[in-house]
Structure formats: C-alpha cells, structure tokens
C-alpha cells in the first residue's frame, strides 16, 4: 500500500494539471482580493447605509477578516468544482491512457490501487484547503490589515478581530470536511463513468443540485438534519453569535460517514468491474 501511495503522490506532483488546479484557486483568490480592493468600500457602505444613520462606526470594516470571509465563501462552489475536476482526473486520466490496465498488470491488488486513489485524493484536498487558508490569511492581513468582521447571516453580525480570527480558522477546518465529501463523490463518479467529460458534467450537476437542495425545506426533520446537502454548510455555523457546536459535530460525523459509504461503493464497483 505504501508503495502504491508513493507512486500516486509522485504522479500527482509530476502532472501539470495539479499546477493548473492550484493556479485556478489562486486566481479566484486574486479576483476576490482585487474586487475587494477596488469596490469593497462601496459594497460595505451600501450594506451598512441604514445602520450608519443610527450608529457610529469606528475603524475600517473592509479589513483582512472580511476578505478572508469572502474567500471562504468560495467553498460554496468554486473550490469544490475545481477539486472535483482535479480529483476525478486522477482516475479518468488513467482510464483514458489505459495506465490503469498497465498498473493492474503488475502484482497490485485492485482494492489497494483504488484505495490509494481515495487516500491521495483526501490528502490532496486537505492540502489544497490548508494552502488556500494560509495564503488567504497572509495576503489578506498583509494588504488589508486586521479589524472587526461584519457578516450578514440572518441579519448583520459583528465580531471583534480576535474572535473573527478563530471563527474563520474553525470555518476553514469544518469546510475541509465538506470539500472531502465533494472529492470523494467525484472520484466515485470517475469509477462509474470512466470518461473525463462525463464525470465532469455529472460532478458539476451534482454540485449545482447540492447547492439547490441545501435551500429546499423537506418538511421532515430527519431529512432536514441528515440529508447530505444539509450537512455541507456546517462551516457557516461559525458565523452565528451562538455557535451550535452539537449540530456541527453531528454534521461532520454524518458527512464523514457519507464519505466512507460513497468511497466504499467506489471500491466495490471498481473491484467487481472488468477493466
């Protein structure tokens, strides 16, 4: 298993598409920073127009913490989309080049091969989110400095700078589990569809549907609590005044359970199918 994992990591590091994926994430980050730099003040003014009539605001609300929160919101769509494309490519490119056959002509167990793909996808996803978080914090604080965080979530919520920092850190950590879910799903799609284009289309549709389903009320407390789409936004709970820790921990546990089930299905299908 260790040898197969090493080989997988070596391949990922040597593939140009890994660099393209990282570049795409930094481009998104750059766009958010640029738009905040040029238009941020106007947006803040618009958001707080009514409140400014009644309250006096001290300090700069367009600060690093707000920018980090804006970049954090790319966890809704942009980052999972990029992750799904790249992670599914770990397998679809092997089907396309028939290297999956070549590897399995060696004394390698099918479960070991696909299992290592899932493990490497998880490692890759975690590293991408960590890299995104580190660069976001560094660049945002360097350019915009620190300050209180204002978030619009069922109304305007204000957090002091230090509190905002750990809330943002926790949100990134919990968001990582959501990203893992999308990565695992896309790799399982790759097992089923084999073809890159089909997998990308299905992954994109899945992502869009997930975001739509998140907003739908199922009129059933079980489905509203445990359906997968209701669990992927747990990182947002860190921006309520009262953080519902129980709900967050339960959501993370259920989402990890979903990840295990989905990857288990992928492993079984890959093992049973002829190449």
């Amino acid at each position, binding site marked *: 298993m260790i*040898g*197969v994992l*090493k*080989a997988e990591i*070596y*391949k990922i590091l*040597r*593939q*140009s598409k890994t660099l393209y994926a990282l570049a795409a994430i930094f481009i998104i980050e750059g766009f958010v920073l640029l738009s905040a730099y040029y238009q941020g003040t106007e947006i803040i003014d618009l958001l707080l127009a009514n409140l400014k009539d009644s309250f006096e605001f001290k300090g700069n609300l367009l600060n690093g913490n707000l920018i980090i929160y804006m970049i954090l919101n790319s966890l809704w769509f942009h980052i999972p989309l990029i992750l799904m494309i790249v992670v599914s490519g770990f397998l679809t490119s092997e089907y396309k*080049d*028939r*290297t999956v*056959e*070549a*590897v*399995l*002509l*060696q*004394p*390698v167990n099918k479960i070991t*091969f696909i299992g290592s793909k899932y493990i490497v996808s998880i490692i890759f996803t975690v590293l991408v989110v960590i890299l995104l978080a580190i660069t976001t914090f560094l660049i945002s604080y360097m350019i915009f400095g620190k300050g209180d965080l204002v978030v619009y979530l069922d109304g305007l919520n204000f957090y002091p700078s230090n509190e905002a920092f750990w809330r943002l850190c926790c949100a990134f950590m919990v968001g990582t589990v959501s990203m893992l879910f999308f990565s695992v799903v896309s790799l399982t799609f790759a097992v089923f569809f084999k073809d890159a284009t089909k997998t990308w289309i299905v992954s994109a549709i899945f992502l869009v549907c997930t975001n739509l389903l998140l907003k739908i009320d199922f009129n059933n407390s079980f489905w509203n609590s445990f359906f997968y789409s209701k669990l992927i936004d747990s990182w947002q709970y860190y921006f309520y005044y009262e953080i519902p820790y129980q709900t967050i921990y339960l959501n993370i546990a259920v989402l990890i359970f979903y990840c295990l089930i989905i990857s288990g299905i992928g492993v079984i299908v890959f093992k049973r199918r*002829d*190449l």
Partner: protein
Amino acid sequence: MIFRATNISKSYGSLKALSEVNLECKKGEICGLIGANGAGKSTLFKIILGLIKQDSGTIEIDSFGLKPIGGIIEKPALYEYLTAYGNLKVFSQVQGLNISTTLYKEIMVQVGLHPERKDIVKNYSLGMKQRLGLAIALLNKPDCLVLDEPFSGLDPMGIHGFHKLIKKLSSENKITILISSHIVGELAELCDTLYVLNKGRMIRSGQADELYNTSVSSFKILGRGFQKLDFFNALNPVEIQGGYLVTTNRTKISSIIKEMAIHGAEITACIPQTDLKVLFDDECL
C-alpha cells in the same frame, strides 16, 4: 507446463467472445496466438493477465515468484508526462520494488533503450514505447510474458528489432512468451507453437512451422524467363509485378523450381503465400 488455460469461456451480453478455449505453454517456449480482428485474442489475454474475469474455465500458472506473469495489452500504456525512469519508478513502486540506478540501466539496456535519455515518454516513437512497455513487463522477473499485438503500428525495422528482442529474452532469460498477432508470417518465424483463434473458438494448434506450412497454398515466384516454359504455363500462373503467383503445395514446389532452373529460368525469389481462409476457417478442417 508453465502455463495452462482450460475451457475458458467469456460472454459480453449476448456476444460469446470466447467459447471453451484451451491453451498451454511449456517453459521457455514462444507460443503464438493468431486470429483475425475480433477473434477474441485480447479478451483471452486480458483473462490470462487477470484484468477481466472469465465466465468459466481455469488458468493455472506454475510459477511462485512475486510476479508470475507480465504483459502488454495492445499498445503500451505509459505515463507520457514522465520520463522512462519516472515510468519505471512508478511501476516498480506499485509492486514494492526499489529501482536503483544500476537496475534501471540494466533493464533499459536489456530492452535496447538508451538509459541516458531524459525527456518525457510522450516524445518517444511507438517502437521505443513498446520497448519501455516490455521493460515494465519484465520488472520483478516474471517467468511468463504475454504480449498482445506487439507489432501493431511498428515499421518493418521496428518489427525486426522487436523480433530479435523477444528471441533474445526467450533464449537468454528462459522466459515463456505468449504472443498474439493477426499477421501469420510474423508469428510463424518467431514461435515454437501456434494457436489459431476464430470467432472465440480455438480451431487449430500445433508446431508453428507445420501449421504455417499447411496454410501455404501458393507461392510468389520472382525472376525471368518463365513464360517460355510449357510445364510452367500448365500450372496456370497468375502474373504479378516482377513474377508469377503459382498455386501448389509445399511438396510440389521444390520439384517445380528444380525443373524451372534446369530449363534456364532465372529465379530470384520464391515466397510462400499463406491462405488465411485455410488457416482461420474451421470448416476447412
């Protein structure tokens, strides 16, 4: 017997790809599998290599090494964004083999590739990719090699070079080689035994030269001064570029050539022509 496939059957839906196929190879032997496109060669090889599962039948390999059998299915599948070293490294790692620089050089030289080449495999010719594919198949020293259509897409020089390499591997390393092609001549001169697969059924097997000879039903005779020979014209030769095509069997051709030489004809070549219909058609049995 190092390798034996017994009563192998495989269907894809309603299509019967293989029907009770039997095949066996002795240690150090080169076995050829001939069949037209779609005969079931790749399916049989994929089953032998464990890539797909047979519906029924058994595969026995008398080898206890870590990797009893190595192979290439159709064109070699390589990581084109990696160098030759990168490819050998990846394929070594997955099977728990640590590839040292010495081993890398040794394998590259063995398959006739330059170990100093540092560019990515994408730049390699098909012949070089085949050789690298063979190098990968040889990792961990398998006792048996399965090569599916290894000459496909190679130029005549490439085919000649690959022939020599396979012969060398068989004679020097005592590796049993099972090789397929749809071109009879290629396998006839390379193999010890031949199997003929048609529409999923093994219709013939035997010594390569004997099987090849039974399928030869005409000869291309090149040279000059044939037209004036009455006995030659009585054979109803068909004129082709630079000579004639004569329909006869192996036992008669030597006396015909002898007679032609006595009567002053200048013969520059006599090339046996295989009749694929005889070889592939089981109704001719």
